[in-house]
């Protein structure tokens, strides 16, 4: 009996939410430039030619900084909860081994290209970071272990590099321009490229570490 009440309540809630959202969406004006004109007017001063990259890294750079912070927090949360599960590593099959040899260098090159192309076409730090992460996950799936030289502070440094670079650039530019994350227009292109490069590396490492599922196991005998 109580189940039927709950089912009908859920149906009523869904219908109400759906009607409200649909009505709201349909009542918006069919043509609305939004902020595209303001962005196009300020685009030459932003340092890049692609409007999405300009919005992400310059006009709304604070959102991107907080986003990288959220990803770093997610990795810290994952590392606090679990230790990396020990994988049973057998030899990878011939298809996987061949694909890893062919695809991974190409993916690294593609990620670097996406990072560079973000200034004038679609691309940028997050797209490049995702491709780097996919390349790392492919290598991990083929059974290559994390090199032990990379396990301790280099890994942690790479994970935090994007956040530190972005926040550092924002703080260092404060005496010049007076506000946090305000780029001087002559330096904007180079600062954006620097921040994007650090962020791409960090995002790749963060996503690959998240897929590994836990913190690195403690060293034996240390």
């Amino acid at each position, binding site marked *: 009996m109580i189940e039927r009440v709950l089912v009908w309540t859920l149906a009523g809630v869904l219908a109400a939410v759906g009607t409200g959202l*649909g009505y709201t*969406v349909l009542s918006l004006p069919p043509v609305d430039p939004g902020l595209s004109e303001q962005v196009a007017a300020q685009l030459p001063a932003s340092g890049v030619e692609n409007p*999405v990259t300009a919005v992400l890294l310059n006009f709304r750079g604070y959102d991107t900084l907080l986003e990288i912070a959220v990803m770093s927090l*997610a990795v810290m949360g*994952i590392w606090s*909860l*679990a230790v990396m599960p020990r994988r049973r590593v057998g030899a990878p099959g011939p298809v996987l081994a061949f694909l890893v040899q062919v695809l991974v260098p190409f993916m690294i090159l593609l990620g670097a290209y996406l990072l560079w192309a973000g200034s004038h076409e679609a691309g940028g730090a997050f797209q490049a970071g995702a491709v780097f992460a996919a390349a790392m996950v492919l290598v991990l799936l083929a059974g290559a272990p994390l090199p032990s030289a990379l396990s301790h502070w280099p890994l942690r440094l790479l994970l935090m590099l994007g956040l530190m670079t972005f926040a550092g650039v924002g703080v260092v530019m404060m005496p010049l321009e007076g506000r946090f994350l305000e780029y001087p227009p002559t330096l904007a292109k180079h600062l954006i490229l620097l921040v994007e490069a650090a962020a791409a590396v960090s995002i790749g490492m963060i996503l690959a570490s*998240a897929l590994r599922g836990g913190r690195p196991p403690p060293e034996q005998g240390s």
Partner: protein
Amino acid sequence: MNTAFVFSLAGVALFLTGFHGLIVRAHLLRKIMSLNVMGSGVFLVMGALARRSVDAAPDPVPHALVITGIVVAVASTALAIVLMLRVHAATGRAELPAPDRG
């Protein structure tokens, strides 16, 4: 109704589908997937509403917000899955307990 509104209504439908799955499904992984479907619906609505601008170039601000949202959703999903694995390790099952009858 132009194409932007068709995509927006599809996004609303995705959101409702995910919401229904979030409430009804007891298994934690299904709940996480339902949350992802809800997120995809929201991203579709925002991306579609950005296409309503005057000339060919769409509004870039919702695009940037959606890119941010996708990346945050991936990171949150990873954390949620690790939490689910901890629940499974602690209790032996990854489902919410069935409600007591009567």
